[in-house]
């Protein structure tokens, strides 16, 4: 790490760029925070609907983050360690949810669950316009970010220790579980936090696939949209401030825990 006592114009410039970016963000947050009064904020946040939306957001984000990591670890490892015909195409396909407009993902989900295959899944686990649908809508996009994170993590871990493990009699699965996975635990934490944060902000696919029914499939971003659409700006601002607070608390906690892992 470079000492702060040896500041050159180069580092000062970089610091100014960072400060400018953060300053812009803080200015926006400050403007949002002062748009309404603390009393109004508390009144909105303590309402039954918003408490439900908050709880549903926390539960669904955690579920989709766990699902995302469960998929991202094996897929990221496969894409990092193996080259196979069509590898580049698969790699690009995994990024589709990242570049696709979120609303389109919701439409694709809705159409898929109208097909015969989707109908069979739906019979076993009803997803369209349910809490399960909220999790699926969040997962489809969050998993793509988690996979990208895990792939980078495995790319930065040398394959040599795994190879040594193989020469010592480990199977590829044992080498992965005993050598690579423990070394990647910080990265797994990072992937989970990225997936969680992404899920918290997800809106488009949830609105299309799971709907925005109060006390049923309403999560915090839908609360903001519902409030905004009927002109209740104070309520939208209060929920937005709550989302900012939750994001900050969770991301800082995850980062601090991740650094200790």
């Amino acid at each position, binding site marked *: 790490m470079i000492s702060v006592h040896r500041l050159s114009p180069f580092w000062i410039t970089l610091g100014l760029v960072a400060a400018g970016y953060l300053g812009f963000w803080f200015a926006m947050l400050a403007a949002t925070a002062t748009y309404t009064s603390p009393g109004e904020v508390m009144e909105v946040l303590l309402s039954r609907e918003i408490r439900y939306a908050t709880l549903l957001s926390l539960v669904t984000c955690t579920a989709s983050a766990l699902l995302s990591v469960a998929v991202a670890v094996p897929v990221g490892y496969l894409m990092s360690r193996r*080259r196979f015909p069509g590898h580049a195409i698969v790699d690009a396909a995994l990024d589709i949810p990242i570049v696709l407009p979120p609303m389109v993902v919701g439409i694709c989900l809705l159409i898929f669950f109208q097909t015969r295959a989707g109908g069979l899944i739906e019979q076993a686990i009803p997803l369209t316009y349910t809490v399960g649908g909220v999790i699926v809508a969040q997962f489809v996009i969050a998993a793509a970010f988690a996979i990208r994170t895990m792939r980078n993590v495995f790319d930065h871990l*040398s394959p*040599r*220790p795994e*190879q*040594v*493990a*193989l*020469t*010592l*009699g*480990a*199977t590829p699965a*044992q080498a992965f579980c*005993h*050598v690579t996975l*423990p*070394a990647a*635990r910080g990265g797994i934490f990072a992937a989970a936090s990225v997936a969680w944060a992404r899920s918290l902000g997800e809106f488009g696919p949830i609105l299309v696939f799971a709907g925005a029914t109060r006390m049923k499939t309403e999560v915090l971003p839908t609360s903001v949209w519902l409030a905004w659409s009927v002109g209740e700006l104070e309520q939208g601002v209060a929920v937005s401030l709550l989302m900012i607070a939750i994001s900050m608390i969770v991301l800082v906690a995850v980062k601090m825990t991740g650094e200790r892992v």
Partner: protein
Amino acid sequence: MIRLEYISWAPPGKGRATILDGVSFEIPSASYAVLMGRTGSGKTTLLEILCGLRAPSSGTVWIDAREVTSFPPGERGIGYVPQDGALFPTLTVREQIGFGLRMRGVPAAEIEPRVLEAAKGVGVSALLDRLPPGLSGGERQRVALARALVVKPSVLLLDEPLASVDEETQDDLMDLLQRTQREHRITVLHVTHSRREAEGLGEMQLHLGGGRVLAKTTAA
């Protein structure tokens, strides 16, 4: 004994240059051979083929009268020490050394004495509870050596094991490698680009270049 017969390897894809082009040689049992060659000459690729980590495009690999070309790495009877030791980042020295024994299903009661014996043999008995980040370059190589030897391989494959340590540590490790080879009566193939290591250690020197063994010399 190590015997390679007409080993060739080229990266997959059309028009890629051949790295190994019909490499053949034999290293007698319980001898110390050094494989030399410039950077990019295919030394590490050849070692990976011997380990079973990379399949040759053609040719056969023999270890102790067994044709092992299609054997998985763990069934070839080899010990492998890569350049930086490649220690397992989250395991203690004790767990590193015992890893191969655990993977081979050795009873737990037998593992600890064998770990202690292997650690003593390479001089790392005092480091058993340490993790890799707390070890020096020389200590890492000693641990990697103990980890490879504890499963009693008949062949030891060393990929530039002294490249990342200072000259004094190199001398200590060279003594250790020679002593280990004699005590265990093991066949060693040591890859290096250092003439000093080759002259100090090798009973047999092989020079790799242009994808082939260019020269083979045996110490008098």
